[in-house]
C-alpha cells in the first residue's frame, strides 16, 4: 500500500530527476539496475529525485514523465568489457541504432528511449544518462555474480554524482 501511495505522490510532485532501474531480477546480473535502485532508495536524497523500478518494461517510464530535467537509466550493459566493468553514456552521444524492431515482443532500452523522445515533446530537453555494468551471468538466478555484486557501491556512488553534477569526475564513455 505504502509503495503505491508514495508513487502516486511522487507523480504529482515536482520531481525533475528520474533515476530508473531496468532489468529482470530472475536472470542474475540482468537485474543489476533494480538492485541499484533498491540501494539508492535507502539513502536520503533531495526531494526532486524520483527512483523508479521499471522491471523489464522501460516503457512504463511514460507513466512518470513530468518534464524531467535529467533521466538516469541503470541497466546491464554488454560493452565487451570484463564482468563488473561500469559504463556511463550520454544518450545524445550514443551511436544511432539500426532502425528495426529488434524483438518480437518487446522493445529494447535504447529503442524505447528513441520512441519516447519521438512521441513525447516533454523529453526534448531532458538529459538522458545511461549507466550500466558488464554482466557475467545471465541465467535464471535470483542472485548477482560476485563480480557484479562487488560494484554495487561504485555504481551507487556514480549515480549520486549524476544527481549532484558538481561532484562528477567521469568522462564520457569512460570505464572503471
Amino acid at each position, binding site marked *: 500500500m505504502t509503495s503505491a501511495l508514495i508513487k502516486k505522490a511522487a507523480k504529482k510532485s515536482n520531481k525533475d530527476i528520474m533515476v530508473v532501474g531496468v532489468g529482470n531480477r530472475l536472470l542474475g546480473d540482468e537485474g543489476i539496475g533494480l538492485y541499484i535502485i533498491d540501494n539508492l532508495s535507502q539513502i536520503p536524497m533531495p526531494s526532486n529525485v524520483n527512483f523508479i523500478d521499471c*522491471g523489464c518494461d522501460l516503457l*512504463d517510464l511514460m507513466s512518470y514523465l513530468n518534464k524531467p530535467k535529467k533521466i538516469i537509466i541503470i541497466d*546491464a550493459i554488454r560493452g565487451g568489457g570484463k564482468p563488473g566493468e561500469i559504463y556511463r553514456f550520454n544518450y545524445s552521444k550514443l551511436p544511432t541504432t539500426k*532502425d528495426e524492431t529488434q524483438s*518480437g515482443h518487446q522493445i529494447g532500452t535504447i529503442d524505447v528511449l528513441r520512441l519516447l523522445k*519521438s*512521441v513525447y515533446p516533454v523529453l526534448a530537453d531532458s538529459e538522458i544518462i545511461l549507466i550500466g555494468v558488464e554482466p557475467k551471468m545471465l541465467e*535464471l538466478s535470483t542472485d548477482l555474480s560476485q563480480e557484479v555484486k562487488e560494484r554495487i557501491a561504485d555504481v551507487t556512488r556514480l549515480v549520486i554524482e549524476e544527481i549532484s553534477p558538481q561532484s562528477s569526475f567521469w568522462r564520457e564513455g569512460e570505464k572503471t
Partner: protein
Amino acid sequence: MHKSIVIDHISRVEGHGGITVNIKDGEVTDINMDIFEGPRFFEALVVGRTYDEVAPILMRICAICSAAHTAASLMAVENAFGVTVSPQTRLLRELLVQGGNIESHALHLFCLAIPDFLGYPSAIALASDHLQEVKTGLELKKLGNTLQEVIGGRAIHPVNAIAGGFGRIPTREELSDLKEKLKSGLEQCLVGIDLMSSLQMPDFCASPNVYAALLPDGPGYSLFGKQIGLSVGGTKKVSMYKEICKERVVPHSNAKQSWFEDKPFAVGALARIALNGKKLSGEAKNAKERLGLEALPENFLYNNAAQAVEMIYSMERSIEIIDELLRLGIKEERPVEVRTRAGTGTGAVEAPRGTLYHNYSFDEKGRLTEADIVTPTAQNLANIEKDLCISVKNLTDEPKESLVSKLEMVVRAYDPCISCAVHLVEINLK
C-alpha cells in the same frame, strides 16, 4: 539452394531468444528456437520457498504478463490449500488481468504489428508518419498499466495481490476515476479498429489450426474458466492441462514442443475468439464482425485483429467490473486466511498470449516441493514452426530480405515471449 534465416535476431545472450530457419531447395530443413520458457528452469527458482514467496518471484518471468502470472500463481496456491476467495477478490483479480491484456495488446498492436503491416521497420519509424497512432498505442498501454497500478499496487509486478485476497482495497474514488479513463480509452481503441480494418492481411501462412482456450464459466466472454476447450472438440478440466500440452522432443528443433494428440495447436487471442467469440457483446462484438473474425480462422496473422477486438473487450469488461464493484459497495475485507496442508493445485488464466498454467505441490508446512509452469509461448512453438514451414513453401520465389520480413511477421503475430529473457543494452565499444 541453402539459406539460413535468422528471425527475430536478439542474440543479446547466447542461447536465448532467436529463431533460425534453415532452408534447402524451398523446404525448411530445420528450425532452431531458443526460448527462455522451459518449465524446469522456473521450478528451480521456487522449490523450497514458502507459498507466499512463490507469486512475487514467478510474476517476474515477464513484465508484460506479470498480472496473468500473478493470478495463475495465486489460484494454484489457493487450490492447493483449499482456499476460496471472496466475490470481491475475484472481481478485483479479473480487473488486474484485464489491465494486463489492455497493456500487452496495445503495445503489440501499435508498436510491433502495425509497423509490420504498414511496411515500417519499427514503431519509431512509424511515429514519423503516424505520430498520433503510435501515441494512441502508448497511451492505451499506459491505461493498462494504470489499471494494474491501482488494483495491483504497481504498474508491473503487482505486489498488492496476495493469496486469499488483496493487501489494499482500492477506494470508490479510484475506481470511478479508472472508469472515466477506460471510457475515454474505449474511444481511442476504436481508432485501432479503423486502422486494423484498413490493413491487408496476406495469407501466405494460412493452414488449418487447432485452437485451445479456457472456456468461460458464465454467459459472457472471459479470460478465466474451469475447463479447457479445443476447436477440434472435447474439453478438459484445468487440472488435466498436461493431457493437452504434451511435450515432445522433435529432431529438427532444439526446443521441446507442446502437441495435442498428433497436432500442434495455437493459443492466444485468436484461439479465444475462435472458441468463445460468440460470447462477445457490445463494441467488441461489432469489432469482431468488422474485422472478419466470424469463421474459424486458418490464418494466424488474424491474431493481430483478434487482439484489437480483445482490447475493446477488456475495456468494456473492466467498466462492467467497476460498475459491479461500485454497486456491491467496496468492502475493506481482509484476505482469506491460508491454512497450509500438503497438496497440489493448478491455476490457469488466459494471459495476453494464451492460456497460462501454474501447477504447484506443497508439503504440510506450505513449502513448495514441485512446480510446473506452461507458458503460452511454449504451447505455440510447434504451431509457429508449422506456419513458418508453410510460409516458406508459399514464398519460394521471394527475395531473401522480403522472405525474412514475412517470416518475422508470422512469428510476431504470435506475440511470442522469446525475448522476455534479456533486456540488457548492447553497445559496441570502439
